[in-house]
């Protein structure tokens, strides 16, 4: 069996296999260790239903769902524009869109405080209108949208780009308006990429930590999402921390599975 996988023409094969084994141990061991320790907790089930866990889980699910709705509603037209346009201005927008991917989330949190905080640039104006953003669930959503949107926009843009303009041209010559063409042709064909981007963005939003703690704080029941609750519980209630970690791990595996299924559903080579 080993003889098959070691291709004699690949000079890197022995080193590659050694590195692969090391890497699997490196990733797998901590994950396994966490699951083992979680399983050893006598009150694992109770930890899963503790009020800290339940509140954090609820908040995470609700805020990430709202964030994803915002990302889809605003990100889809933006991604389509980027995919079909070729002006210099759009190229610049394209670069800006990806900034949050490389920006440290803590910096994003500081930046949002400087904009929307009480001392921020537009904060006082918002306060004047009775709107108070920092340390609310809205702030949690702001933080999630900020860091997660680029993952969705990038995937959706690539999905739209993979559909040749000629498909839409042909659709229009068949009497179908540009708007209907989008819903009947472009969107179904781009759907695997779009859903893949959505899964990635959701994973990023649910794991959001740095920007949230900076901009929204860590208030149980109001802004304390799962990652923040894990941090808090680590000091007092390791059982709850482990339970929530196991939940997040399950969510991550689900995202991986969805991505795997979607990858096989692409229309590549047929477009």
């Amino acid at each position, binding site marked *: 069996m080993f003889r098959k996988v070691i291709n004699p023409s690949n000079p890197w094969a022995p080193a590659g296999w050694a590195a692969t084994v090391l890497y699997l141990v490196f990733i797998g061991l901590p994950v396994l260790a966490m699951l083992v320790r979680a399983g050893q907790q006598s009150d694992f089930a109770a930890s899963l239903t503790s009020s800290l866990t339940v509140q954090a889980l609820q908040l995470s699910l609700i805020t990430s769902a709202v964030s994803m709705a915002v990302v889809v509603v605003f990100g889809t037209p933006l991604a389509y524009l980027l995919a079909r346009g070729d002006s210099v201005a759009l190229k610049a927008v394209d670069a800006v869109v990806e900034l949050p991917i490389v920006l440290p989330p803590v910096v994003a949190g500081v930046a949002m405080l400087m904009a929307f905080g009480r001392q921020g640039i537009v904060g006082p104006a918002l306060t004047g209108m009775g709107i108070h953003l920092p340390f609310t669930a809205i702030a949690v959503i702001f933080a999630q949208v900020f860091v997660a949107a680029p993952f969705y926009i990038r995937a959706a843009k690539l999905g739209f780009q993979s559909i040749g303009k000629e498909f839409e041209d042909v*659709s*229009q*010559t*068949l009497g*179908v*308006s*540009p708007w209907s063409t989008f819903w009947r*042709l472009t969107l179904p*064909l781009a759907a695997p990429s779009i859903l893949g981007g959505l899964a990635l963005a959701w994973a990023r939003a649910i794991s959001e930590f740095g920007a949230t703690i900076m901009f929204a704080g860590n208030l149980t029941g109001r802004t304390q999402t799962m990652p923040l609750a894990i941090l808090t519980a680590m000091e007092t209630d390791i059982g709850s921390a482990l339970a929530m970690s196991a939940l997040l791990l399950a969510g991550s595996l689900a995202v991986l599975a969805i991505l795997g299924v979607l990858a096989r559903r692409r229309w590549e080579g*047929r477009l």
Partner: protein
Amino acid sequence: MTRGWVRCSLADFVLETEWEASPGQVLVLYGPSGAGKTTALRAIAGLLRPDQGRIEVGERVVYDGARRVWTPPHKRNVGYLTQQYNLFPHLTVSGNIRYGMGGETRQERQTRVEELVSVFRLEGLEERRTWELSGGQQQRVALARALAVQPAALLLDEPFSSLDAELRRTLRGQIRAILEQANIPVVLVTHDREEALALGDEVQVLDRGRTLDRGEPLRMLGQPGQGRVARLVGVENVLPMRVEQRYPQDGSMVCVSADDPPPGHPALRLEVPLTDLEIGQPLLVGIRASDVILAGDRLASSSARNQLQGTVTGVELRPPGYQVALECHGVPFRCHITGRSLSEMGIRPGMNLWAVFKASSCFMVAEENTAD
């Protein structure tokens, strides 16, 4: 009917052309790649906005630059078949055909789809995915989809270019029959001479964004009228000559090469059909390479009026046969022969051969009438 004229300027290219095709007529836009053929189709379909012009489809004016008339593509009712067919991969064969249909009841649509499936001989493939189909089947689905919306005109962009040569010949006949049945004006774009001859009722030769000439397919592609058209449609030998002697009673005349022969050689002379040109006037004589016979010796007794002695300068593969390049009296001359003739005669560079052809294989090509 569809007719009109457009001027479209793209980055480094200007298309300026006019066209006219009546119902049941196939107008072929013929020319090399980059001639502007596809641009013209896209302008008619409304996928590209010309700078100026006027486009009529059916009885409607869909574009008039001067009067600011603009109909978007989905309201033009113009069928457009792209080179790649662009079948929609998320739909089945019948889903593709049904895609643009509207208005009628579900039952009527289904009946129309079944009709088209049978006309295009797609029975049994209705629920297939489009990528499971052969190239010929894909072409038929794309054409069925375009005709399903009952367009007022049909545009075909190199409809056979993604099929192999064998399939092209078989499908051409079927497509021809279907187009006649549809009885709408068709504008077909191609750079394939055989295709233009087989499908066209009229051929319009385009080059670098300009219309060079327009007429019956055989006249355009067999004995084209202009020098550049002749070279574009692949007349291999276009020789500058002048009239030396006229024989009105025989219906022929003798022309002599306009270029001086190399020292020690007689000038190249050809016997060609009589024209109304006077002695001494220049002309371009066209001879298709496939009309020339190669012989090892001068034919002692033959009806062919032209026999030129020449030296082989090169042989190259030109499917389905070979092209032999000769130099006759200092003038390059090309002939097409089969692979068997090539090997049986043992033709190789340096060999001396005779090029033999009838006077009636020579045709007159006018000089360019536009100097640009």
